[in-house]
């Protein structure tokens, strides 16, 4: 239980270590390309896919616009059906509520349904401190937990592991794992089943999240592939569900859209194998005590961001991770959060704010803005737009100004100002802004570059195919370009000069 994301280095440094791990890159390239192919096939089958995406985005946006009303309605419906509703402002409150319920019942072990919300609040770690063991029952989460590892993917948290590594983890850490365990997936799954079966039968309390919470009826829903979630949701006496407040949908009708979007985007299946729903307590059947912890933990902060709030549409499908060329090469750990990939690059700064933590501030820059994530997102989160917006918030936070929100108060701060200790980047951008606001200034700089180009043309020996002279190394920050890339020498004459000389005639 010592593994933690706390204290992770900023993305570029974390990525560098990950990139050096060729086993990791091999595992990821194989896994993501497999899921990408499956997704592309089943999405391609749906002729109205774009309409479904629009509908999914619209339902989420409408719900978020009236989130307070829907949450109160959800609370009423849940309470009427015999569930107890708790409100948690942050991770600490949510963890304390769950631990309190366990302690009230003298429970020292719980079984867990795979849940991002409980990963986000680090519930397992908190429960362990209270002497309560939390057993992950999702196969991939179990691999991560037994390996004292960190999740690196939302859907497939152990995506960075191959089956040989999984066998070693099971043999070393899973009580009762046979000595002659092979790395055959069926054998690995069978060993996990034996291990988990004892947990299901002995645990009196289960902890879950929820994919959706229906306000009309007070119904919670979990979609999964393995059926282990359903065991947790039906066998124990006590069920506690930690649900992010953005998971609420107004009615069952809305699920029609999401149950088409989610499995195709997520596992690349037409339908997920297990869809479990539960509506309060049913006497004599299933858990007889139900609690729902409605979790904020930064969601209202994200909601207040006019551009960023679209990230709260996310249904945790992972399609953005699987298509992301950055994620495919660095893996999930480099993002320093249970939410990695493109969604992590926007969600973490939105939930936790920017300007106070180097690691968080590095995340919006962990993208080439290629837009593959936007294209794949089933709820049409415009990732490039949000990433660029968050970059401006990072920069603004370091100008020493408050986060932009109320525009009228910022008019007085309009002139471009730098913080007390400007970064070289800020100086460069200010200089570029000065040079590029006036064609005369740019023209003079280009003439200087042209002089350098004429000089270099005599000195440089190397040229690229086609004859263009190239430089193999640059000084200063330019060195980061030339570690693996040549750079073309400046031309002897800019286009502007050519145009003036030729009078615009070729």
């Amino acid at each position, binding site marked *: 239980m010592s593994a933690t994301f706390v204290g992770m280095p900023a993305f570029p440094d974390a990525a560098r270590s990950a990139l050096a791990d060729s086993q990791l890159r091999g595992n990821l390239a194989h896994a993501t390309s497999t899921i990408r192919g499956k997704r592309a096939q089943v999405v391609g089958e749906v002729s109205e896919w774009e309409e479904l995406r629009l509908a999914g985005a619209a339902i989420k946006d409408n719900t978020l616009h009236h989130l307070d009303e829907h949450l109160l309605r959800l609370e009423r419906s849940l309470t009427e059906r015999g569930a107890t509703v708790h409100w948690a402002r942050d991770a600490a409150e949510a963890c304390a509520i769950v631990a309190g319920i366990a302690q009230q019942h003298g429970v020292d072990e719980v079984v867990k349904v795979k849940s991002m919300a409980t990963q986000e609040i680090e519930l397992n770690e908190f429960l362990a401190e209270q002497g309560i063991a939390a057993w992950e029952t999702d196969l991939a989460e179990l691999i991560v937990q037994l390996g004292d590892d960190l999740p690196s993917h939302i859907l497939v948290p152990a995506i960075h592991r191959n089956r040989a590594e999984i066998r070693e983890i099971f043999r070393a850490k899973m009580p009762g794992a046979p000595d002659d365990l092979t790395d055959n997936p069926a054998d690995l799954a069978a060993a996990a089943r034996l291990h988990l079966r004892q947990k299901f039968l002995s645990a009196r309390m289960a902890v879950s999240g929820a994919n959706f919470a229906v306000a009309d009826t007070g119904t919670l829903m979990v979609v999964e592939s393995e059926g282990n979630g359903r065991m947790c949701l039906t066998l124990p006496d006590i069920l506690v569900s930690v649900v992010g407040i953005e998971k609420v949908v107004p009615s069952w009708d809305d699920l029609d859209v999401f149950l088409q979007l989610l499995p195709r985007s997520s596992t690349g299946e037409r339908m997920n194998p297990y869809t479990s729903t539960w509506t309060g307590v049913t006497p004599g059947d299933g858990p007889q005590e139900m609690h729902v912890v409605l979790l904020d933990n930064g969601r209202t902060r994200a909601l207040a961001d006019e551009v960023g709030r679209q990230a709260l549409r996310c249904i945790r499908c992972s399609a953005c991770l699987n298509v992301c060329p950055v994620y495919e090469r660095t893996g999930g750990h480099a993002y320093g959060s249970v939410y990695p990939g493109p969604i992590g690059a926007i969600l973490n700064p939105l939930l936790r704010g920017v300007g106070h933590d180097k690691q968080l501030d590095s995340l919006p820059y962990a993208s080439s803005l290629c*837009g593959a994530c936007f294209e794949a997102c089933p709820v049409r989160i415009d990732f490039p737009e949000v990433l660029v917006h968050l970059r401006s918030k990072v920069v603004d936070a370091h100008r020493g100004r408050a986060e932009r929100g109320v525009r009228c108060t910022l008019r007085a701060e309009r002139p471009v100002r730098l913080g007390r200790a400007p970064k070289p980047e800020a100086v460069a951008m200010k200089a570029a802004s000065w040079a590029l606001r006036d064609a005369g200034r740019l023209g003079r700089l280009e003439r200087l570059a042209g002089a350098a180009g004429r000089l270099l043309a005599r000195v440089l020996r190397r040229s690229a195919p086609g004859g263009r002279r190239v430089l193999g190394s640059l000084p200063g920050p330019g060195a980061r370009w030339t570690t693996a890339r040549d750079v073309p020498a400046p*031309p002897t004459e*800019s286009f502007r000069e050519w145009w003036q000389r030729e009078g615009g005639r070729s």
Partner: protein
Amino acid sequence: MRAALLVTCINDAVFPDTGKAVVRLLSRLGVDVEFPSGQTCCAQPMVNTGYLDEAVPVVRSFVDAFAGYDAIVAPSGSCAGSVRHQHGIVARRSDDAALAAAVAETSARVYELSEFLVDVLGVDDVGAYFPHAVTYHPTCHSLRMLDVGDRPMRLLRAVRGLRLTELPAAEECCGFGGTFAVKNADTSVAMGADKVRHVRETGAEVLVAGDNSCLMHIGGMLSRQRSGVRVLHLAEVLASTEGR
């Protein structure tokens, strides 16, 4: 039709041959393109790095330079995309309604080169001759921001002498990403390495794309690896008559 060349700052300062090729190509097709001398940059480097205040005066100079043209033609999907999708954001930041109105006016008139050729001029065959083995990389912003679709391929297929080979995983980003290329240099290079590997697998002599920024990155690696593969902007291929 008054058409302006938005040459883009990178082509102006680093790849002037691309600008000259656009002038030559359009002139051959009967369009005497003008070069508004007040132009500098679309401000994308500032916007994408988060420096919106710094982008405001640059966008202001952009709309001043390009006011009054019927069409603004850019040999860059990325810069055309930036004008269409980001100038509005910068104008909102400025709180200047006049700038916002000017931005809406100019943005709607900006065309990436292949869009201008196929949609406005209505041509696929621009009368080019380029007898080389070529592969084509569709840059992310032309593909996913502008949705230029198969326009560049239609133009290339009509070039006489040109042998076009399909690039594996063509739609995957090359890893350039503007300041991403230096802020996250290791990841950028890892992405570029895969792109370069795919380019070399095709056996093409020339890699063509519609953005010199991406080509500077991919070409920089091809050159470092002494691959012998040349990179060339789409405009230069389409302008080429190679002595004919």
